[in-house]
C-alpha cells in the first residue's frame, strides 16, 4: 500500500528532523524526503557532537584516557569503562582480583538496568506517553544513588582502574542493591500493565519497523536490535569476559523483528540483569579490589589488540594499536549504535513519520556515542 502511494504522488518535500528535535534524543539530524506523511528517504546526518575521542586516545597515556570512556555513552558508562580496562589489562597482562571482577559486574549490570529504564521512558515518550518516563526515572534515581555511593558520580563514571576498582564497595551498597532489586521486581508488573499490555502501544509497535536478521548482519547491528531479530548473540555469552561464565543467565531473544520485539528484549534484559546481580552478590568473595602489581606507567607490547564487551546498546569494541609507548598509537572505538543507526536509512523507507520515529526510538540511540 505504501509503495503504491509513493509512486503515485510526485509532490515531495524535504523535512529536517533535528538537530534540535524532541524525538532525536540529542543532536541527531535526519534529512527526510517526505511524500505527505510517508518517508521516501531518511538520511541521518551525524557529527553535531563529534569530539574526536580517538585522537584524544593518541594524545593521552593509557590511564589518562579512562575518563573519556564515561563520556561516550553516558547512559551505560560503566560498560565502556569495563571494555577499556579489560583491553588494557589484556595488553599489559594484569591480573584482576576476583572481588574486583564481581564489583565490576554488579555495578555494570546496575548501570545497564538504569540505561534500559531510561530508554523505556524515553521510548514511551517518543510514542506520546509521558508518565512512564517519570516512573522509570523514579527507579533509575535509586540506581544512581547506589552508584553514586560507590563511584562518586551519578552519570559519567570513572570507577574501574587497570587491575581493579577505584575503591571497595561497602556492605550497605550490597544490601541496598538487593533492596532495590526487590523494589524493581515489584514495580515491573506495573510497567507491563501500564505500558507493555496497553493496546495503543501494541498497535504502534507490532509489525512496525521490521529489521530482518540478514539486514542486521549486513549492517553490523548488535545488541537488543539483533536479538529482537531472532539472533541469539550476546558478547557476554559468546565471548565471555570477566566472571560472566560463572553466572547463570538467559539471553532474551525475540523472533518478530519488529519494534515490539526490541522492546520486549530490553524489558526482559532488565529481569536478567537483576538475576545476574543477585547471583554476583551471593557469590562475591572477600579480598583486595586492586591488583598488587600494576605498573606505574603502562607500556604494552607493540601490536594491535581488540576487545569487545556487551554494552547496553550492543557490542562495544576497542581496537588499540600500541607502539610500546605509554600512549596508544591508534585507538579505534567501535560504537554499537553507529552500526545500529546505519541501517535506519534502509529500514525506514516507505514508513509513516510516526512509525519511523517509533523505529528510531526502538534502536535506542545515544548520540554522543555515535559521534564520538
Amino acid at each position, binding site marked *: 500500500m505504501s509503495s503504491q502511494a509513493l509512486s503515485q504522488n510526485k509532490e515531495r*518535500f524535504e*523535512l529536517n528532523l533535528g538537530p534540535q*528535535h*524532541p*524525538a532525536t534524543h540529542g543532536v541527531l539530524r535526519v534529512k527526510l524526503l517526505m511524500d*505527505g*506523511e510517508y518517508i521516501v528517504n531518511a538520511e541521518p546526518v551525524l557529527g553535531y557532537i563529534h569530539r574526536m575521542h580517538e585522537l584524544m586516545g593518541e594524545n593521552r597515556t593509557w590511564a589518562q584516557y579512562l575518563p573519556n570512556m564515561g563520556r561516550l555513552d553516558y547512559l551505560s558508562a560503566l560498560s565502556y569503562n569495563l571494555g577499556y580496562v579489560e583491553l588494557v589489562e589484556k595488553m599489559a597482562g594484569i591480573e584482576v582480583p576476583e572481588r574486583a571482577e564481581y564489583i565490576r559486574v554488579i555495578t555494570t549490570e546496575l548501570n545497564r538496568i538504569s540505561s534500559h529504564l531510561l530508554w523505556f521512558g524515553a521510548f*514511551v*515518550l*517518543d*510514542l*506520546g*506517553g*509521558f*508518565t512512564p518516563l*517519570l*516512573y522509570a526515572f*523514579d527507579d533509575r534515581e535509586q540506581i544512581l544513588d547506589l552508584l553514586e555511593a560507590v563511584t562518586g558520580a551519578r552519570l559519567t563514571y570513572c570507577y574501574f582502574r587497570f587491575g581493579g576498582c577505584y575503591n571497595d564497595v561497602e556492605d550497605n551498597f550490597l544490601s541496598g542493591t538487593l533492596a532495590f532489586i526487590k523494589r524493581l521486581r515489584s514495580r515491573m508488573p506495573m510497567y507491563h500493565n*501500564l*505500558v507493555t499490555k*496497553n493496546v*495503543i*502501544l501494541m*498497535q*504502534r509497535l507490532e509489525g512496525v519497523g521490521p529489521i530482518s536478521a540478514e539486514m542486521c548482519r549486513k549492517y553490523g547491528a548488535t545488541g537488543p536490535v539483533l536479538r529482537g531479530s531472532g539472533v541469539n548473540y550476546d558478547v557476554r555469552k559468546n565471548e565471555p569476559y570477566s566472571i560472566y561464565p560463572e553466572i547463570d543467565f538467559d539471553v532474551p531473544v525475540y523472533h518478530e523483528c519488529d519494534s515490539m520485539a526490541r522492546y520486549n528484549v530490553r524489558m526482559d534484559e532488565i529481569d536478567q540483569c537483576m538475576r545476574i546481580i543477585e547471583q554476583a552478590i551471593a557469590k562475591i568473595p572477600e579480598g583486595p579490589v586492586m591488583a598488587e602489581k600494576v605498573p606505574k606507567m603502562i607500556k604494552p607490547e607493540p601490536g594491535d589488540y581488540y576487545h569487545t564487551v556487551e554494552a547496553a546498546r550492543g557490542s562495544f569494541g576497542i581496537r588499540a594499536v600500541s607502539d610500546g609507548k605509554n600512549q596508544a598509537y591508534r585507538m579505534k572505538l567501535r560504537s554499537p549504535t553507529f552500526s545500529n543507526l546505519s541501517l535506519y536509512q534502509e529500514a525506514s523507507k516507505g514508513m*509513516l*513519520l*510516526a*512509525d519511523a*520515529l517509533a523505529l528510531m526510538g526502538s534502536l535506542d540511540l545515544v548520540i554522543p556515542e555515535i559521534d564520538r
Partner: protein
Amino acid sequence: MDLGINVVEMVIYLVGIIAFAAGNAAYLVWVERKGAAHIQRRTGPKEVGPFGLLQPLADGAKLMSKQIIFPDGVDKPLFMLAPLLAMVPAIMIFVTIPFSETLVARDINIGLLMIFAFASVNILALLIGGWASRNKYAVISAARAVSQNVAYEIPMLVITITIVLITGSMNLREIVASQAGPFWHWNILPTNGNFLGPITFIMFFICSLAETNRAPFDLGEAESELIAGFHTEYSSMGFGLFFMGEYANIVIGAALTTILFLGGWYSPFPETIPYLGTAGAWWFLVKMYLLIWTVVLIRWTYPRVTLWSLLNLSWKILIPFSLLNLLASAGLVKFLG
C-alpha cells in the same frame, strides 16, 4: 420590546460567558499541570500562591508581556486570524449551554445544531494557523487535524442524531428535561429504555476526545513528531489563545456529554440526598468536571495513536457501529416508544 433591559441582559451574559470560558481555560491548565504532576509523583506548580493557584495568572501575565513574532514569509492576516478563530467560536457555543433549568443565555430550540455548526469552525483555525505559519511541521499538522476532524465529525453527528431520536428534541434544555429523575433515567444507562445507551456514550466520549484534539488523539500537536504542530510558530497571546481555545473546547465537550448522557443538572439520587437539591447548576458542574478529570487522566496515561489507527478507529469501528446504533435506536423508538 424593551431594548434597554435586553442590552443589559446581553452584556451580563456576555461577560459571564467570557469569564466562565476564560477562567475555565486558565484553571484547567492548572488542573492539568497539577494533576499530571501528582500522577507522575511530582508536586507541580507550587510557588505562586497557595498550591500554585495563582500560576495561571502569572502564566497569563507572562504570555501577554511577550512579543508576537512573525516569522519570515508568514501570511500575516491569516496568521493573526487563526488564534481568534480558535477562541471565538468556543465562546459562542457557551451561549446555548444550559447549566441549569434557568441558567442559559439563549435557549434556542436547535441548540444542538448550533453547537456543531460553531464547533466545526475550530478546525478552520487549525488549518489556517498551520498553513499561514509557513512551516512544514505546521502544514503536516494542519493536514492531520483536518483529516482527523472530518473523520470524527461523522460518527459524532450520527450519535447525536440517535439521542435526538430518543429524546425527540434538538433543544438542549429539553434533552436534559427528558432525563429528569434519578440516574437510571439518564441516557447513558440501558434502564432508560434504550439498551444501547452505554455503547453510545463511550463512542460519543471517544469522538469528543478526538474532536477536541486531546491525547491520545492529539496528532495535530504530536510533540515527539511535529514539535508543537500547528502552533509551532505562535508566540505570546497567539499561542495563549490557541491554548485557551483548546481548553474551552474540552469544557464544551464535557458539557455536551453531560447534557446528552448524564442528565444535565439533575441529581443522581434525588430521593436519598434531598438536601443537596434535586437539580441545580452545581450538579451539572460536578458531572462536567468529573468528565474533564477523566480526559486529563487519559492524556497522562496513554501513548499517542498513529494517524492510521486513528482513522481506522473512526471509519472501521465508530462509523459502522454508530450507524447500526442509529438504526437500532430508530427501531426502538418506532416499535417500543
